[in-house]
């Protein structure tokens, strides 16, 4: 583990849902521009780790530091603000607002941050171009294919130029060709803008797009780079 120079560091996170421990003393760290795959069997606590790292869920104990600030000590509003401004998110499915057009979906994080509609949609269009989905800009999510929808979601996660991108099974609902393309575009864009990517996946071929992997088993995270 190399916390020095890390952008996001978590130490001994504990989180219990009901009686089931999801995280049991998990550690994690990521550098700017680094792509880290979080792997592990289902129910191992991968997603919980991501939620804690992103400040969506407060861990029962342990701390998360982002850029020198302690996330775990922030108020809900502060963490929300951080997520709007500095983090980006891609999920497996069900993340696009069905009634908004694709370009409006991509522009949404910018607009939540107070960017004017015109400018937000211009920037959104540029990102959609980059993710090869410019042609569906004015369609609704229900009218595009799964691969296109996921690319729209990736465009949305990157539109605010986040410092950290959290991707939870971003290709889970896609076939391998689409999945690979999405991963390629995602990691390429992230590396270019030195965005750190926390990539939760159980697929090795998706994890192969990372720089290193962390394995979560029984709520404990193991950095395999350090183990070697």
């Amino acid at each position, binding site marked *: 583990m190399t916390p020095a120079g890390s952008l996001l560091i978590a130490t001994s996170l504990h989180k219990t849902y009901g009686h089931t421990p999801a995280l049991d003393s998990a550690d994690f760290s990521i550098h700017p521009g680094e792509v880290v795959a979080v792997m592990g069997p289902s129910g191992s606590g991968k*997603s919980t780790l991501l*939620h804690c790292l992103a400040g969506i869920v407060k861990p029962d104990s342990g701390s998360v530091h982002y850029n020198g600030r302690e996330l775990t000590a922030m108020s809900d509003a502060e963490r*929300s603000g*951080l997520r*709007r401004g500095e983090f980006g998110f891609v999920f497996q499915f069900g993340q696009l607002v069905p009634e908004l057009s694709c370009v409006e979906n991509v522009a949404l*994080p910018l*607009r*939540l941050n107070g960017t004017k509609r015109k400018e937000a949609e211009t920037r959104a269009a540029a990102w959609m171009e980059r993710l090869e989905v410019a042609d569906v800009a004015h369609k609704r999510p229900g009218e595009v294919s799964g691969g296109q929808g996921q690319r729209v979601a990736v465009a949305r996660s990157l539109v605010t130029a986040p410092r950290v991108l959290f991707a939870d099974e971003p290709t889970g609902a896609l076939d391998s060709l689409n999945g690979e393309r999405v991963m390629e575009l995602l990691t390429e864009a992230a590396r270019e803008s030195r965005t750190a990517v926390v990539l939760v996946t159980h697929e090795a071929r998706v994890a192969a797009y990372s720089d290193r992997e962390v394995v979560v088993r029984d709520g404990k995270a193991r950095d395999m780079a350090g183990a070697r």
Partner: protein
Amino acid sequence: MSGQDAPAEEPRSRVSVARWAADLAMGGRFAVTGGRESWARTIMTAVGVGLGVALLLLASSVPTMYQQRNERGDARSSFTPSGEVKPGADTLRLANAGTTFRDQDITGEVMAPDGDGTPPVPPGIDRIPAAGEMWVSPALKKLLDSDEGKLLRDRFPYRTIGVIGDSGLSGPSDLAYYAGVSQKAFGHVNSSYHIDHWGLADKKGANEPLDPALLLLIIVGCVVLLLPVLIFIATAARFGGERRDRRLAALRLVGADIHMTRRIAAGESLFGSLLGLAVGAGLFLLAREIIGSIQVWGISFFTSDIVPSALLALVIAAAVPASAVMVTLIALRGIAIEPLGVVRNAKPKRRRLWWRLLLPLLGLALLLPLAGGFGTGSSGGNMKAYQAAAGAVLLLIGITALLPWVVEAVVERFGGRGSVPWQLATRRLQLSSGTASRAVSGITVAVAGAIALQMLFASVGAQNTEDTGQDPNRAQLIANVPVNDGDQARDAFARYRATKGVRDLLGVTEDYISDVRPSKDDPTSVPEEAITVADCPTLREVVRITSCKNGDVFLVDSSSYYGEEPGFAKPGARVNFAYRDDGTPDLRKKKLWTIPQSATKVKPRPDPTGSERTGIFATPGAFDIADLPDPGAAAMIRLDPKVPDGVEYVRNTSAALSPAMDVMRLSSTSQSDEFQVIRKALFIGATATLLLIGASMIVTTLEQLRERKRLLSVLVAFGTRRTTLSWSVLWQTAVPVVLGLALSIAGGLALGVMLLKMVGQPLAVDWAGLGTMTGVGGGVILLVTLVSLPPLWRMMRPEGLRTE
């Protein structure tokens, strides 16, 4: 994709009744056994339908309530239409002794038997109260025994000997009393009469056909209040439809065909609505108890009076489940339930305008020919009433049908501009405006109808609302004291002046004097003139004078007002103030008084009650009121605003002066009570409907939120503020409601104008009513949003991300 479902291959006639029953029963079973979700759906539907059914049952009880109440009211009436009853051994002398305590009206009679026979006993009591005794209604007894009624106790110098039974009351909260007084006490009563029986024996009035205009009002009123209830029931039958559709899709996968799924769905809603009937009956019983224990505008009902008419109850029991099933089947037409899921007919068809416009236009077409005049009693009045009612109903339903089109057309134009919440809301509405319009359509009917009726009542009421000319700034109360001579008048004024809360009092004593010889034109009559005696400050209030001192006399010539020959009352003229007992001038035993030469002619000034007095105005130094034969005394009282309940102290003083006297409150306008009540009732009815619609909007909103639980969690993940989503819920409710209100205001004004034209009233818009309805509409928007917020926030928790 649905080849096997082509009707040709499955002749419907072959679907036997047994299949139908089996599928319906299966649906019923699903409604119960489908796990928590279907239970929740069934309960929601049952409660929704139940609320509607309870309202319908209450509405169907109104005829009985009205009838029972009127019958008892008639039974205790002392009105004798056949004419005056001469006092006899078996008659009763009565005087109306109603009074007011704070805002509550108390009805009462003081009575004394005329002879030794058996005078009639009013319903609800055992015997005529002897002098000094009284019977009180339970509500009045309670009021008198309470701390609040302490002040009132002084007004009734009687011993309570019993409680009036239910048969003698219209409702449980009636404030009423029967008090016994001595025959002598009637000398202090302004007006009394004799009766030989209680109750209206002659009930011809009851069977008269309704006035066509009234019939029109009743029909429109029913449509206005009940159509939204029906719409609500229809909405309730669709609660949770999306989940049910998914469940049906699963059934298709294991082999059910489309017709079967429809029948199963029908069975589910049949079960829900039957349960709703039961819930409705329960709610009705509950409401019955509640209604029995409350009163609105002084009106209350006995629980036992609230019985639905059997026929109407039967119609409700049959129509509600039938319409629930129909609504379900119609709703299912728009979607295809396929084995792998529910397919909404790809692009919902654009709503067509023509037939939606046709309905209100047809309504207007029916109404327009009647605009010339209506209810003039011409032949075919009933036909016209039905034509008008049909027109009004078509117009109202037409507005409802127009609403979805308007919502769609307007929402279409929102190009995704505006803030994020606005964008989310309008885009949501663009995707499915039907749900929103359906919920709001109830509001539209209710508000449009309420506005139209309000206009009608406001206009009719405006005619009855007169400028009384009274000036409450100069005096707030006026008491007409029955006195036998001037001394008593003086005494009465003194007692009022000494009453707590009275700041100032203008006391005038009035009587008549006559000429000393009969009229030249008609030798049988003697010209008369009024004489008013009061001190200088008081006189200034009733005539325009510049200077006044005790001993002065002023003259206001009434002839110039009535265009008659100049009166006999001139300075220096001699006049007579002797009168016989029957109230005619007595020229045989004349008592004479000479109007001083110094008397000046002046102009009258409206007194605080707004009336202008004429005749002779004398100060006490010029004319001794003790000489007046049968004076009337009027005390115009100015209250001290700092003393609470000043009015009640004055009323108590009045009661002590005379057992049957009440004081009048002055106000600058007066309006007949019925119109106030009807307007309030309309307002309450419309508000209740709006609340009902609000309730169904809450359910739909929550349902929609639950469907999007995951999306909400995702939005939270990337940092969406609570306020953003809260505002979007607000806008999402507000846009359809505002459109609905706008449409209903337009429609309501149109219908109102038609109604006014029909009854030949001048056009007037009831802005206050419009404002109130708009306000209530806004309140509903707020309410729906506020109630939706806690669940919204609960669903915005990140736990939603884990449920996969």
